[in-house]
């Protein structure tokens, strides 16, 4: 959907805590620290907040609006919690709430303790969980490895080509002080790692970390008067796959291309005009799939596209310039959004992509649904 003049919204503040291990604070306390940073970044007092959208980290009970309210000390006109803790879905909800007139300045918060609480991700992913568990198919690495092995079979994709997802992101992470994994990793280092679920290795799977992130979204007329350059939402799109039958489409996720089609037609631009891409990377396979779905290369061509270095520092399409979930931290795409905003504002220092004006922020909620946003410092006219 295109956001039109008069009803547009913008991200006007972002905040984050350190990422990694934060043993001495609750997930809510971590989220509050990020929220305070985001409000300071926007130059807003909390009294300006009339909307609150909190995120419950997946697999936990943390972070509902009712648990955040007492710590933030606010009674916003509109408050709610999104259950599955995802950045893009929350951002779209904020956009809708502003356009509907429920609120004009919305704070979005997220905090997780998945590392120190040792949250188990070794569970069936994507529905029919009892059948998957009986088949020993636990952890997202299982279905992701099936998807990429099929990709290899159909298109000749190699393990080395896939490895460039993780290697490129590690190169970016080395320039990001927040990143958990900053040790240099060459493609040979990658290939020398043992399999976890073949053909996937440790470096193909998300970091598990504690951390918080928050953003502030306002209506465009308010955004103009604030401290930082507003980052506008050009268009938003989603697609669900909640019927979720056990068919090949569930793993290959061709429906991601439907999000891309609606997203680009909404903004009136194409993939060639995207300067930087933030593709949620619970596994490296999701990056491979999204490069094709969002039109950066042809169907089946993501392997050669990656191996040519397009996503690396200096490449044609920098991807996950903070290191992503594979190297920076695991915050369910919130830190991807934080990084996208800061890249568009030109604040990323050594890893700044020169002249970046349009960013794609895309994510999926496992095999259930996907959401994407085109972001720019230039609003739609």
């Amino acid at each position, binding site marked *: 959907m295109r956001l039109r003049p008069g009803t547009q919204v913008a991200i006007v503040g972002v905040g984050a805590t350190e990422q990694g291990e934060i043993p001495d604070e609750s997930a809510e306390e971590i989220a509050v620290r990020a929220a305070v940073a985001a409000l300071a970044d926007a130059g807003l007092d909390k009294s300006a907040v009339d909307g609150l959208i909190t995120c419950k980290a997946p697999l936990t009970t943390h972070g509902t609006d009712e648990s955040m309210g007492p710590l933030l000390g606010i009674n916003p006109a509109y408050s709610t919690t999104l259950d599955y803790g995802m950045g893009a879905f929350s951002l779209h909800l904020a956009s809708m709430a502003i356009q509907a007139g429920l609120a004009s300045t919305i704070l979005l918060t997220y905090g997780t303790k998945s590392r120190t609480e040792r949250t188990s991700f070794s569970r069936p992913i994507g529905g029919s969980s*009892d059948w998957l*568990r*009986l*088949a020993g198919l636990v952890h997202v690495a299982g279905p992701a490895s*099936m*998807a990429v*092995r099929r990709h290899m*079979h159909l298109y000749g994709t190699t393990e080395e080509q896939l490895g460039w997802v993780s290697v490129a992101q590690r190169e970016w992470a080395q320039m990001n002080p927040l990143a958990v994994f900053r040790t240099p990793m060459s493609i040979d280092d990658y290939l020398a790692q043992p399999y976890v679920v073949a053909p996937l290795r440790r470096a193909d799977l998300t970091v598990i970390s504690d951390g918080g992130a928050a953003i502030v979204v306002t209506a465009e007329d308010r955004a103009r008067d604030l401290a930082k350059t507003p980052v506008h939402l050009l268009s938003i799109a989603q697609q669900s796959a909640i019927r979720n039958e*056990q068919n090949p489409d569930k793993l290959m996720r061709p429906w991601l291309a439907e999000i891309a089609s609606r997203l680009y037609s909404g903004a009136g631009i194409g993939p060639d005009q995207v300067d930087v891409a933030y593709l949620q990377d619970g596994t490296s396979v999701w990056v491979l799939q999204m490069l094709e779905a969002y039109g950066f290369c042809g169907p089946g061509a993501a392997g050669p596209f990656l191996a040519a270095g397009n996503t690396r520092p200096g490449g044609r399409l920098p991807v996950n310039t903070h290191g992503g979930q594979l190297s920076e931290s695991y915050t369910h795409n919130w830190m991807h959004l934080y990084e996208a905003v800061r890249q568009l504002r030109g604040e990323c220092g050594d890893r700044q992509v020169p002249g970046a004006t349009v960013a794609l922020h895309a994510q999926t909620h496992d095999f259930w649904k996907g959401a994407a946003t085109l972001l720019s410092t230039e609003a739609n006219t």
Partner: protein
Amino acid sequence: MTSPKPLPDLDDPLTEPFWSATREGRLVLPECTNCGYLQWPPVPVCPQCQHTGRRWLEVPAAGTLWSYAVYHLALDPAFADEIPYAVGLVELDGVGRNMYGIMTGDGSALKIGARVRGIFVPATDQVTFLRWQLDDASQAEGEAT
């Protein structure tokens, strides 16, 4: 010492016929009694027509390997004694449905597109699992030609 393998709930009327059949070495799938839609996995309401009646249709335990994952790490400790083990997604012959299942062996001989057939492996007096193996007959035939 590994933790025990997960077992199905045999008291669940939605899936009990499946497990009764595997005990007899048969593969059955639920079919909607209103629209004929074949379900896998079983769901309490037909996803096509929202009817709740179903009957169980026997289908051949044979198919083609669509893809597979080879576990080198026991992400579920219950399967630690089988590492490395492979889970396949099998396209069942003639019914247009796909089924996840453990493949026999360590996964090294598997190939996408290979012919596979079901084998029925008793786990307890009550539970027989359906696992999958490469169809030796078709492989041997392939080598001979």
